[in-house]
């Protein structure tokens, strides 16, 4: 027996062992250290079927349903899984051309070949029913149920907002969203997105290489159920909203109606209005562009985003400030000296109440001068900045020059100029009262947002405080409330002064020489203040009001753009109709109603480029 070379058995063993070690190391790398294989396996063998929750419903203050949902279907495609497709049949069934098919497939493949993307959006229930029977022939295609918003009444588009597909920026910001998801883009849909959207559910199906479903992955152990979106219970009065929108037909401008004691917005109209159903579903893109390109800017929510010169309604705030500062007394009289600032013909005001009734411009010139030049410094260039700072603080107490944190997105803050504003414009020490007196009558550098005007009416109605205007009382299954909407913001001004304002505003509508007799409603004590705001083009017609005088139920601001005739002519009667409708539930003045509903007083767009120089 020869047993030469026995030592070579060790070499053979080493070879065997080396291979075993290489394999085990390789396995360790693949299975333990590298997670990519697992991810890829899940990508190709598991299909995540998102369970889209129904979006929350939106109700008005009386429980009327404003917004609900309707089921539609998205046709989804996983390009990699499309095999042996009878393209002709497919195109015929789905109802698209071959070119359309190819371009949609290209788009889907560009997004991802392995994961699903939407091939065709928002197929109606009927359409889906018609080709449901063919679906099984189309490997790689499946259908996902979605919901669309439905509005029975075509109202409150600016308040409700609209829902649209998420864009890349929104996906980047919040990982909750995936391509093709819907998100509130504006209005309540946006500000209450996290309430309304609910929580998506995820059903995981195990699919085989042919994309056939084998069954629920892990018997559904990792599945999550969709949680329905929470409902919004809004402060809107659908009837009033619809009525107010009707009044603003053929006009540009806005109406804001608020319940003063609670800050609850009863109606919020921006004209021109549009039917919210236009921005739903497959017609959305086309309609959106149309609205976007409309010269009258229907998508622009004037009530929250327009910054207008307030005009004479601003005088109410000036009178309250001056009284509270003690720079004038309630019985203060000033001559109507038209050489200082233009005015209409009326006797000189002998008290604050009369000044408000007659809206005397020189009176408020004097008043504002006393606020700005209080005589704390000898130099008017030092005195005026001091006075302006005091005034600026008062204006902020009225909610001007700051964002009123209403529960709608993109509200503007308007502008109440401060010393640094004028220092920048004219240079420090180079401006004084004479430079800025236009502010006294709501012109000049002052800009106000309509919601702030309505808020001013609320402050007078409440005799000195306001609650941040808001649109949602409570929301969700737990009836969640926002504490901010139950907090009183005090102006710190003596309520007695506001009584004077209320009396003045009552006289505006009822007194001899008042500027808004058109706002008079039999049996209802309407208080109001007109404004006629100069601007590029014809004057804006402005009116703020509340009623009844005692225990006011409603405060209304109306702004009609470029409507010749002044605040008393257009805005005041429109406001009175809103008040009558709300308080009485019925408008008795049918002729007035018809007249203002049909009128189209606004100057045609585009406005002429020349700026009119005219001071009242």
């Amino acid at each position, binding site marked *: 027996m020869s047993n030469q070379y026995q030592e070579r058995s060790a070499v*053979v063993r080493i070879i065997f062992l080396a291979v075993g070690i*290489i*394999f085990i190391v390789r*396995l360790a790398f693949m299975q333990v250290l590298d997670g990519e294989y*697992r991810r890829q396996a899940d990508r190709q063998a598991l299909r995540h079927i998102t369970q889209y929750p129904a979006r929350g419903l939106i109700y008005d203050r009386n429980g009327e349903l404003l917004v609900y949902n309707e089921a539609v279907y998205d046709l989804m495609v996983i390009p990699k899984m499309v095999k042996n497709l009878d393209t002709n049949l497919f195109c015929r069934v789905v109802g698209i051309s071959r070119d359309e098919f190819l371009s949609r497939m290209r788009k889907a493949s560009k997004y991802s070949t392995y994961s699903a993307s939407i091939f065709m959006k928002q197929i109606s229930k009927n359409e889906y029913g018609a080709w449901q029977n063919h679906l099984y022939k189309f490997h790689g295609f499946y259908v996902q149920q979605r919901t669309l918003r439905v509005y029975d009444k075509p109202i409150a588009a600016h308040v409700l907002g609209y829902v649209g597909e998420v864009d890349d920026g929104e996906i980047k910001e919040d990982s909750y969203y995936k391509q093709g998801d819907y998100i509130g883009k504006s209005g309540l849909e946006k500000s209450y997105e996290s309430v309304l959207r609910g929580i998506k559910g995820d059903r995981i199906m195990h699919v085989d290489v042919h994309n056939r479903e084998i069954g629920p992955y892990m018997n559904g152990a990792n599945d999550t159920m969709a949680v329905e979106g929470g409902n919004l219970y809004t402060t809107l009065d659908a009837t009033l909203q619809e009525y107010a929108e009707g009044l603003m037909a053929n006009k540009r401008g806005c109406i804001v109606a608020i319940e003063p004691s609670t800050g609850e917005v009863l109606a919020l109209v921006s004209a021109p209005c549009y039917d919210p159903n236009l921005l739903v579903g497959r017609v959305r893109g086309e309609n959106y562009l149309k609205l976007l390109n409309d010269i009258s800017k229907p998508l622009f929510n004037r009530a929250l985003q327009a910054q207008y010169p307030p005009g004479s309604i601003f005088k109410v705030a000036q009178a309250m400030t001056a009284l509270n500062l003690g720079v004038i007394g309630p019985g203060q009289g000033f001559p109507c000296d038209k050489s200082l600032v233009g005015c209409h013909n009326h006797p000189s005001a002998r008290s604050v109440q009369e000044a408000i009734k007659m809206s005397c411009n020189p009176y408020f010139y004097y008043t504002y001068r006393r606020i700005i030049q209080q005589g704390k410094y000898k130099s008017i260039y030092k005195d005026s900045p001091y006075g302006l700072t005091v005034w600026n603080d008062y204006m902020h107490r009225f909610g001007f020059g700051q964002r009123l944190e209403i529960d709608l997105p993109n509200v503007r803050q308007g502008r109440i100029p401060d010393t640094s504003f004028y220092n920048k414009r004219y240079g420090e020490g180079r401006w004084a009262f004479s430079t800025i007196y236009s502010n006294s009558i709501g012109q000049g550098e002052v800009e106000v947002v309509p919601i702030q005007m309505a808020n001013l009416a609320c402050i007078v109605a409440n005799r000195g405080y306001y609650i941040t205007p808001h649109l949602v009382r409570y929301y969700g299954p737990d009836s969640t409330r926002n504490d901010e909407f139950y907090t009183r913001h005090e102006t710190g001004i003596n309520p007695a002064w506001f009584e004077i304002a209320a009396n003045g505003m009552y006289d505006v509508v009822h007194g001899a020489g008042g500027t808004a007799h058109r706002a008079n409603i039999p049996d209802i004590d309407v208080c109001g203040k007109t404004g006629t705001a100069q601007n590029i083009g014809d004057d804006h017609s402005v009116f703020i009001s509340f009623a009844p005088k005692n225990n006011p139920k409603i405060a209304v601001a109306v702004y009609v753009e470029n409507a010749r005739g002044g605040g008393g002519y257009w805005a005041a009667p429109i406001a009175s109709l809103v008040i009558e409708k709300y308080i009485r539930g019925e408008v008795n003045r049918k002729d007035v109603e018809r007249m203002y509903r049909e009128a189209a007083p606004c100057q045609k767009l585009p406005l002429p480029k020349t700026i009119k120089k005219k001071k009242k």
Partner: protein
Amino acid sequence: MENKIDWVTVLLYAAILIFGWFNIYAACFDEAHTAILDLKTMHGKQLMWIGVSVIIALIITHIDPRIFSSMAYLIYLVIIALLVITFFVGKVTKGGLSWIDFGFFKFQPAEFAKFATALALAKYMSSLDLDYRQLRTKLTAWAFILIPAAIIIVLQHDTGSALVFASFLLPFYREGMSAKILVMGLLAAVLFVLALLVNKYILIGILAAIALFYLFVWLNKRTRKQYVWVTALFLGCTLFTLSVDFAFEKVLQPHQRDRIYVLLGKTDDNSNTGYNVNQSKIAIGSGGFWGKGFLNGTITKADFVPEQETDFIFCTVGEEWGFVGSSLLILAYIGLLFRLIRLAERQYSKFSRFYGYSVASILFFHILINIGMVLGLLPVIGIPLPFFSYGGSSLMAFTILLFIFLRQDQERTKPI
């Protein structure tokens, strides 16, 4: 006297066999056919083949082992004849004629050619008056290997099965073949891969640099013989490198070229040529440390991996049993191989020792190629994982291969 059969080997064999069957059951699992012994299913058939194999093993362990050596040449000739006959009566599967269809059973002679060749070679190598140094001896030995290999390649286009015959290099080495041949083989493989990846002239430059470094820096004293050797080796390598392209383009078939390119990462084609390996890696890699659990493989249960009951059965292990299960299987195989080497070394006869080494080497080669393939370390070469892959022919052939050796080991003390 008669020794006991080596129970360590038998137990390892049984463990691998049973684990394999469970994985076949998982790989072809179908809710509709869960019965274990359903002959319409693959796992049912495999269970039957396991039964047949056990019977074969029992028969082998009860016959006179001398019959293997005396009948070696005859068995070899019969198998060669069967290989040729297959060409005429065989069934075409996947471009090759490798099966004889008996209706209930598809017989694959190439699987049986391995043990037959091992027996014949063992007999030849243990001839009493054999002088290994004679060229005639060497040529005859190589002829034993190359004849079946050539038939399998030329007539059956089954490169994988033919390559297995290279495993006889290890028993040859054990019996005294120069280690240089093993080293050269390794060197050739490395050069082949490098030549495909790196610019050939740069590669030759590097080889020249290594040769010069060895001669003039490494060695203190240089003999003429060393000059000649190094120069010859360098020229050989250069020639080999230059001929790689030719061999690659002209000798290999297009699909083999593709498979090598995929392995080297030169083409990234996961939907066609690279699909199998890519899916196999996904299945194994996704198993994680503990695996997804028996019957819970998402990839292997969903038919993503083609051939997953046969050549790609390891994917199921990787996916469902994870790193733990895969490593244990590999350790079981390595343990079996070590045991076989140990048994081979305790043989008294050169015949048994050579045969034992052949068994270990053939098994090793299958394991290397098969697992190397599914792990993406080697190109796709379709050969089964011993005792594990689905298939009656391979299971019976491997059982015969192994138990002939165990029978010899049992009677190692008896003279042949």
